[in-house]
């Protein structure tokens, strides 16, 4: 049993905040709302000021309690590396990157475009320097945005795994593992469909203890059927079944895995895990709200929306 007593105040505050997360009944009310007015009324009854519940606000809230926590910063790596991609592509195409940036992030976004143009990587966290330099060279040399994207995506996962391992936090290790496995399966499946070459696969696939990089690449090169067989044998039969049905279902499966992980931290009273879990829960909630809005606008029926709803934290 862990004897840590770190972040007792933050965890208690987060538990109080959990009451304002949407539960199943709230979600059903939103889905069943007859029009925009009713939808807005349900939203405002649960949320006085929606900005308070944005992932950016949630991050500020937990980071305010645990500013020195390196393991929590891993939660933002996906945003950080996305912002690097956005800045690089905007730089090459001569566009303004600002509208492509995602917040919250560990990067000073105001300085990022200018710093990249000057090849000054000091504006980035240290673990991103090498990736930024290599991605810059790759995009300048090949002008292949997709290749640079894939390279950065794989580096995101590698960095996440490495820093999670170094943090010693089991929760973050599992978080990085789930994201890596899901991303690798998705990339491998798409590449097998698009019949991508080995050189691309070597850049795009990260690899993990569950899915060995070289074996996965070989399976992709042998065709989709071979890939599915390899995934089944590696213990991902459920993922294979869902991939066969639809990409949407697979995406939901991946998100639900993260939410199951978040659920394991709900009962803890100390440590960074409940804080990370709350952040993941708030991200998922935002995702559910986006799905409901988009589905309602496109006229999707209730069953379709319910089918796409991610697992809830509360």
């Amino acid at each position: 049993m862990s004897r840590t007593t770190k972040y007792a105040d933050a965890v208690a505050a987060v538990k109080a905040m959990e009451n304002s997360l949407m539960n199943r009944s709230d979600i059903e009310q939103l889905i069943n709302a007859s029009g925009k007015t009713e939808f807005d009324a349900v939203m405002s009854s649960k949320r006085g000021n929606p900005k308070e519940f944005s992932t950016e606000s949630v991050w500020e809230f937990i980071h305010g309690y645990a500013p020195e926590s390196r393991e929590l910063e891993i939660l933002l790596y996906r945003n950080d590396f996305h912002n690097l991609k956005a800045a690089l592509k905007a730089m090459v195409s001569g566009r303004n990157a600002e509208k492509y940036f995602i917040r919250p992030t560990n990067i000073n976004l105001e300085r990022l475009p200018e710093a990249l143009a000057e090849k000054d990587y000091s504006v980035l966290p240290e673990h991103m320097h090498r990736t930024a330099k290599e991605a810059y060279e790759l995009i300048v040399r090949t002008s292949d945005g997709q290749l640079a994207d894939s390279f950065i995506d794989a580096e995101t996962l590698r960095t996440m795994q490495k820093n999670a391992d170094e943090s010693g936090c089991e929760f973050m290790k599992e978080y990085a593992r789930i994201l890596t496995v899901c991303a690798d399966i998705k990339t491998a499946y798409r590449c097998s469909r698009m019949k991508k070459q080995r050189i691309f696969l070597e850049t795009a696939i990260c690899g993990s203890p569950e899915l060995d990089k070289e074996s996965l690449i070989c399976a992709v090169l042998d065709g989709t059927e071979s890939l599915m067989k390899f995934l089944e044998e590696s213990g991902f039969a459920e993922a294979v079944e869902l991939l066969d049905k639809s990409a949407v279902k697979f995406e939901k499966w991946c998100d639900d895995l993260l939410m199951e992980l978040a659920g394991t931290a709900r009962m803890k009273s100390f440590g960074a895990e409940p804080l990370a879990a709350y952040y993941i829960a708030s991200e998922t909630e935002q995702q559910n709200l986006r799905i409901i809005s988009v589905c309602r606008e496109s006229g999707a029926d209730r069953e379709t929306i319910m089918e796409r709803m991610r697992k809830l934290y509360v």
Partner: protein
Amino acid sequence: MNSLGLTLAIAGAVCAALFAGIGSARAVGLVGEAAAGVVSVDPSKFSKALILQLLPGTQGLYGLLIAILLLSRVGVLGGNPADLTAMQGWMFFAASLPIAIVGYFSAIAQGRAAVAGIGITAKKPEHNGKAIIMAAMVETYAILALLISILIIYNINI
């Protein structure tokens, strides 16, 4: 006067007050941190959180009680210290150990249970009573230790 016997008895009183007090201080501080976290989000939960914060403070009081009883028994408080042999001194010292040791560890354990209880109060304030009961269960062992310390102190022949 056998100064070693009296010194040991006083050392016992010091241990009882010191370790049980340290345990309580740490635990009350810990629960206070958690309580502050909840109150920062929902100030209306202050009184419920305060009850949980007070629970691990009792071990410090038990330590103080044993220290006073022991000092009183050996006559230090009355200004007329007893002439204790080394053996008697060791007995008084041993008498202080149950509350010193159990007090310290039970306070920390109770603090952790109370912090978990703060989580219940934060999420389901209507179940605050259950959180108090669960944290209070730890108190049993501090009370048992207190009882043993008292029994020993009053059964040493001087």
